[in-house]
Every structure is written in C-alpha cells, then in structure tokens.
C-alpha cells in the first residue's frame, strides 16, 4: 500500500457570527467540525454531502485558502498549518485546486496564455518563450489546441473552460489536486468528457485527487475511496464498493436511496428523510444526524459518536456500530 500523501487530523473551521451594534461575536457556524482522514499517494478520495455539509470548506482549509481554526494538515509528513505564508506559497506548487464554476474562476480580461502561464511565472519560470511553450503543451494535454492560447475565456464553452482550469492546475506538476465540484456546472454529455480526461491525467502524471461533489454517481465513478459528510462531520469513509454496496451509516443509506437512477427496473426502497438539514450555527447535540435518523436511540442525542473502524478500512461515526 502506498504512503499517505496527506493526513488530516481533527480539522475544524468555525466561522464567527457577528451581531449587535459593535459587531461582537455572538456565535459560531461550525462549518467543519473535527474531520480526520488521509489520502494515499495516487488515489482519488471522493467527498460527498449535501449543500452546507462543509465539503468545500474542508477542501479550502486543506490548502489554507481558508485558515483552519484547529487541527493538523500533514502534507508529505510536514504539518502545513504551521507554515509561513511564503513557505505556503512555495508549497502550492504541489497542491492545486480546480473550481466548480468555469465561468467565474477564469479572469475574463486575460487571454488563456496569461491565465495558464501565471502559475508558471509565480513559481519562477521567468522566460517568456519558455512559458509560451509550456502553455501550448498544457493546452494540448487537456485536449485543446495550441492556437487557443490567444483567445479569451468567453470564446469557450463550459467544458472547454473547465479544461483551461485543469491546464492551469497542472502547470507546475502538482502532486495533489483538490477538485471542488469540477463537473457540476456541465451538461451530461460534456461531464463524461471531463471525467475521462481527469482519469487519464491521473494515470499519466501520477496525480492524487480529492474529488468533492454532491453527485453520488459521479463520485462513485471516479473515486477509489469515498467519505460522506453531514453537517460539518465525516460520518462514513470506506472503499467505494463497500460504501455503495453496504453502507453502514443511516445517513449514507438514506442518501443513496434518494438518488433517482435512470433505470426503470431498479425498484428502490426509499428511505425518505423527514425535514431539512439543521443549521450548522446551532447543530443538534450528540450525533448531528439524530434529529432525522430513523434508528435514533437515547444515547444519540447525548453523546457524539466516535469516528471509528467497523471493518478494515471502513470507518463510521454511529452509535449503532461503535458500542459493540
């Protein structure tokens, strides 16, 4: 088994809620609340969850684009939460991010050459002709043509823009790429092109991905292991086949049963969850899911379940499994 390239331990991100005339902090939104996992070299770790579960905040906290409140993020054995901003800048060569919205994440006033070339310049490729060569090479890697370099983002379709975003992330030969909903703004027929491209790139450049998305089928397709988040916490993490075929946590079960599948022969026993996701500003005590859980017991509203292993490599935070 390969080495973990990234280890996240007890990651927390609390956003202050300011109120009153003097903007005093009156509360906290616990966007990410004690999340731990590791990512092995060369694997794709999927993170799924509904809106507001903290999956994007987790991704951004790892890169310190949002400063984590507490916890440890170890990249190749070094705790990067202690790094100075200059060290961090150098490190971002190895850790890149692809954003959801290819319309908003590219500067409309820059040419593709400038957009893709900028990370090269920042990390010390001073020669213009060298940069030009590398940009053209990158565009071809992601399935565009070198003559696209002189165009502006608005001249491209959504799928092509996402390719530009990928080219920019690849510019400095990163080791880890965090993909934050990279295909959710795209049409189905284009989505599969991008997913295939990402898989090819992983094999070609030995990349490691953290793939954050809300679409369970997409995450299943691309990931090796999958983590499920609910209200700022990781509730289940396992190899993808184990998670999709034998989900343990009641939330994972409900989530999987709610996905409509394009096959009239699949008759599902739906677990319809009552109500909505509670506010992360005022999460329920104990297990965050107990208010909607069909199997909730007395202990669930009082004690927060530990995130522990039930099988080899299958971790669950639920009292149904942890108190055997």
């Amino acid at each position, binding site marked *: 088994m390969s080495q973990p390239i990234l280890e996240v331990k007890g990651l927390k991100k609390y956003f202050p809620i300011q109120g009153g005339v003097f903007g005093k902090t009156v509360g906290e939104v616990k966007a990410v609340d004690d999340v731990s996992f590791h990512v092995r070299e060369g694997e794709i770790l999927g993170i799924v969850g509904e809106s507001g579960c903290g999956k994007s905040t987790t991704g951004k906290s790892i890169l310190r684009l949002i400063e984590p409140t507490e916890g440890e993020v170890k990249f190749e054995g070094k705790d990067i939460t202690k790094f100075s901003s200059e060290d961090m800048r150098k490190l971002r060569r190895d850790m890149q991010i692809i954003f959801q919205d290819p319309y908003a994440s590219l500067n409309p006033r820059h040419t593709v050459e400038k957009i893709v070339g900028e990370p090269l310049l920042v990390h010390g490729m001073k020669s213009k002709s060298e940069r030009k060569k590398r940009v053209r090479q990158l565009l071809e890697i992601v399935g565009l043509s070198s003559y696209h370099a002189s165009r502006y983002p608005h001249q491209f379709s959504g799928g092509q823009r996402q390719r530009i975003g990928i080219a920019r992330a690849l510019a400095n030969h990163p080791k880890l790429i965090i993909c934050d909903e990279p295909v959710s703004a795209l049409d189905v*027929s284009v989505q599969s092109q991008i997913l295939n491209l990402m898989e090819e790139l992983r094999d070609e450049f030995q990349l490691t991905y953290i793939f954050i998305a809300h679409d369970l*089928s997409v995450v299943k397709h691309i990931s090796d292991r999958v983590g499920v988040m609910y209200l700022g916490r990781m509730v289940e993490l396992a190899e993808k086949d184990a998670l999709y075929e034998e989900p343990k946590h009641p939330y994972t079960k409900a989530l999987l049963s*709610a996905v*409509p599948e394009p096959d009239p022969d699949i008759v599902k026993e739906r677990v319809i969850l009552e109500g909505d996701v509670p506010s992360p500003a005022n999460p329920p005590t104990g297990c965050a899911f107990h208010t909607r859980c069909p199997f909730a017991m007395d202990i669930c509203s009082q004690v927060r379940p530990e995130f522990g292993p039930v099988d080899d490599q299958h971790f669950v935070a639920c009292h149904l499994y942890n108190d055997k």
Partner: protein
Amino acid sequence: MAEAILELKELSTHFFTDSGEIPAVDQVSFTVHKGEVVGVVGESGSGKSVTSLSILQLIPKPPGKIVNGSIFYKDENLAKASEKRMKKIRGNEISMIFQEPMTSLNPVFTIGNQMREAIRIHQKVSKQTATEKAIHMLKVVGIPRAEDIVNEYPHQLSGGMRQRVMIAMAMSSEPSLLIADEPTTALDVTIQAQILDLMKKINKEEQTSILLITHDLGVVADICDRVVVMYSGQVVEQGTTREILKDPKHPYTQGLIRSLPKLHGKEKKLYSIPGTVARPRKDHIGCRFAPRCEFAFERCFKENPQIYNLGEGRESRCFLHSKQEGERLKDVTTNT
C-alpha cells in the same frame, strides 16, 4: 388512452436578436394526456424551457415570437388566445412551478399574503376563506405548522419548503395541467426525493397531468410515464420511459444514457459524446446532431431528417430509420 389535455403541433418559437434569428424551438410536437406525467429532457440550450414558456405565452416578446404551430389545450388553440384569455388560463387551468424556489417568491410579502392573492385572482372568495384554503393547501403539500407558516416570510423557509409552497400555490386552483420546469434542480437529493414523492401523490390523487422539464434522466425514470428528448431545439425522440431508457433509438439518446456514471455496478471508462451541444441556428443544414454522431453519413449533413414513426407513439428523428438505411440501423442496435 385517456383524452389529450395538451397537444403541441409543430410549435416553433424563434428569437429575433441582433445576431440573427434563433430557432430556439423548432417544429416541436407532442401530447400530454389526462393524468399522465410527461418528461421533456435535454441539455442546456435544447429548447426545453422555451417550449414550456411558449405554452403559457410567457416568452418575452420581443425578441421571442411563436412563428408557427399550435398549442391545443382542451380544443382551444393557446397560440392564438388573447392576453385576457391567457390570464384566465394561467394559474387556474395550467399552473407552472420554476427551478428557483428562492427567487420565485416575493421576499417582502408573507407566504399567506402571496397565496391569498393567487387564490383570489381565480376564485371569488373572501379573504377569510382564502386564508383557510391556503392553510389547507400547505397541509396537503406536507408543510408542518401550516397555521404559523402563512404568517412567515420566504427567507424563513428552507429551499425544499419554498418549493412546497410554490407547489401549494400552483395547486390551489386545481389546475388540470402542472408544468414543472426543473423543480428539483436546486435542491439536495434527500429533499428532491421528498418533492418528487409529493408530485407523484398529486398526480395520483388529483389526476393532474404533469409536464416535467428536466435534464436529469434519473428523475425521469422515477416519475414520468412518457419522455420527449430534445436536442438543439428539436424533438429527437419520444416514447414511454421504459422504451427510452432501456431501448433508445436515436444516437443522441443512446449516447446520453451511456455517458451517465452508474450508481451500481462497475464500469471502466465512461462513454462520452465528442464535441459540445450545438446552438440552434437558422441556416443549419442537415441533422443538428450529425457533427457529434458516430453513425453520421453523407445524407445527415445535407438534409434535416424528418421524424420517423416507429409505432405506438414511438418517434425518432434519424435517417438510420429510413428504409434504405434499415440495414445500418440493425448494426447500430446490435452493437449497443
């Protein structure tokens, strides 16, 4: 088969813009029967939303205009109806719900206020009765504490709750047809499941026909009886949900289904349709899908294929179905 509630015949809606005429909806024909749920699927730019807006004459004009075709609602051609008549139909006979439950409610009025308005436009009832009716409808769509909710504002509700309010409002005058334009796209899967169940319940109990506009084939499989597939402003295929999903005939539908990642089972590499979705153009010659189609041959680039009737309401717009090309079609179906 039950009587037809809505019948579109060769409907064409064009937009006249500075950069030319855009045939956003081109010769679209399909029927919705009483008590039926019909899905219109397509990717962005396929004309599915413009089709639904055309039915209720909600196309901004100019630049939009229904240039051809008819929309029969119970023997009345809505394409020719006056604005006064349309006001009677909208929200009363045909209701519509939209994708964004966040923006389709007015933020400065209470839920009760907005529901009362909708009810009193179409029914001559007192304020008191309208409020009672609003509370009743909120209960029907499964909103807890309906008596309190009528006095609350939209921002106090979650996305799923707001969509329920929209449905309650749309159903308050017992329409015979509900048009739902991407009603669950902005919602999370667990909430989507709740809303789809509610729509199924309404369809069954009230016998309301539903025209569902969506891009999600999973949603279609879950709720629709029949499916109309659109591409670049045209209907490319239609049939029952089972036929379309299990035995698609048009290369576009086939490609679309194959490019979906599956929740169960294993697959190595995803199939993908090359290229991007074509925007409808007036001067387009040939089949609009031809540049992306793996089975395209000479004729596809020269003529626009007509719709081939494959029996029992099954239609497909592809030259592979013509007699001369029959052999080729056989190859296609055995290969996939």
